[in-house]
């Protein structure tokens, strides 16, 4: 008997990745600039932030990466001398159009900052704050949102028995996850993170990084970080900025193994300046 034994053909291999560059653009900058007075902090940047993926922005201090990040939910509007040029679209709509409602934009584009900025309120009220502003007052509904947001931010088990205690009594790492839960409570589509772990210890950092991995796919995440290894660990795509210009944008694993631009190579290998 000559039974042919065929090995099952592998269709996916470890490390085989989808082509992340072909994903739909969720946010798109076209010749986008940001000025502080006469100073051009972001210079005619062109890039696309892919839907459901994690994009990290790296570059030396003052390169414009935070400014570009904050431009995505128009946080820069709060700075009097600041103005934008070019276009920044979100789902195809120009977010700098005059009739855009900034408050509703910021609900769709959540943000987590470098230092945890919890409100001096109870843990529950911190999370319920946004949904209440959206007009939700039903206690059961709010309870549900608080629980699911805290679970998504992987902090539910630690705080479920003390939801009514003041959030300022939590550790720094817990506060940062609470901020993340608070951002998730209003069901945003995009999460902006401005150095979210720079004030945290390695353990709390690892928790936030794990969370980013879990939230990937459900949200479009854009993270500014000074920690190059963090960018390499958490993101699908990496943007390198220098002096307001977007020098290189590509798949993270390509950027960290064979960058195309010398400036990128010099920066990530620490040979800058």
């Amino acid at each position, binding site marked *: 008997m000559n039974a042919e034994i065929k090995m099952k053909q592998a269709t996916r291999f470890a490390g085989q990745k989808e082509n992340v560059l072909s994903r739909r653009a969720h946010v798109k900058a076209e010749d986008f600039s940001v000025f502080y007075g006469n100073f051009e902090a972001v210079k005619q940047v062109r890039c696309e932030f892919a839907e459901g993926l994690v994009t990290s922005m790296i570059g030396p201090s003052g390169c414009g990466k935070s400014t570009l990040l904050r431009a995505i939910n128009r946080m820069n509007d709060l700075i009097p001398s600041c103005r934008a040029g070019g276009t920044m679209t979100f789902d195809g709509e120009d977010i700098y159009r005059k009739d855009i409602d900034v408050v509703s934009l910021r609900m769709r584009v959540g943000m987590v900052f470098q230092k945890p900025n919890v409100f001096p309120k109870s843990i529950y009220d911190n999370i319920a704050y946004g949904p209440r502003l959206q007009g939700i007052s039903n206690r059961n509904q709010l309870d549900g949102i608080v629980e699911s947001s805290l679970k998504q931010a992987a902090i539910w088990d630690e705080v479920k028995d003390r939801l009514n205690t003041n959030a300022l009594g939590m550790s720094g790492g817990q506060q940062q996850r609470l901020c993340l839960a608070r951002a998730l409570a209003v069901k945003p589509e995009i999460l902006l993170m401005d150095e979210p772990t720079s004030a945290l210890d390695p353990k709390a950092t690892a928790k936030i990084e794990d969370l980013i991995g879990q939230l990937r796919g459900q949200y479009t995440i854009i993270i500014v970080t000074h920690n190059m290894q963090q960018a390499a660990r958490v993101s699908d795509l990496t943007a390198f900025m220098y002096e307001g210009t977007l020098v290189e944008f590509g798949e993270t694993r390509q950027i960290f193994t*064979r960058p195309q631009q010398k400036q990128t190579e010099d920066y990530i*290998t620490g*040979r800058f300046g």
Partner: protein
Amino acid sequence: MTKVFVHEVEKLKKRILTLSSQVEENVALAVKALVSRDADLAKKVIASDTEIDRQEVEVEEEALKILALYQPVAMDLRFLTAVLKINNDLERIGDLAANIAKRARRICKVPEVVIPPELDQMAVKAREMVHNSLTAFVNLDANLANQVREADDEVDDLCKVVSDFVAAVGQKDPEHLSTYLKMLLAARNLERIGDHATNIAEDVVYLIDGVIVRHQSLDEED
């Protein structure tokens, strides 16, 4: 990266270059011992292989230390992975040189037989491949690395000629068959040295271009 990192990398470079020159020398001496029937020389080569093994472990420990402490990326990461792999190949080449020396020692004890010129040519070619692959590594020379990759076929062809020679002569002169077989094994060791030199050349191409060229011929890349 810091000056300390650059210094560490320079130190590692020196270590692997010392190892490579030692390996290169052992290949040359092993072949010389075989061709000139020099048992003392063969013994020396066999003895010095432990030194190569020791150096290989040192290079690996240093490279792993740098990876863990500095978490290099881009060119630096490619350099360190290349060092780790080349280190491995060098150690294997050292072992093969020692194997050739062992055959040489045994061949010295039996009456002399005809050595086909192709074995000599193989030895020259394999040594040249090792030398060129390491020069390509030192000078980051992708062209030279690709020349090494091309040369591998020539060594393989010569090995086939030696193999045919042994098959033919073994029938005519069965009395010395065991000596001829030792010669064939030495040829086979040289052929493996060529393969390891090719591996090194491929790692050099990866180091320079960031592209993995293993398992494909030069024509396929074009």
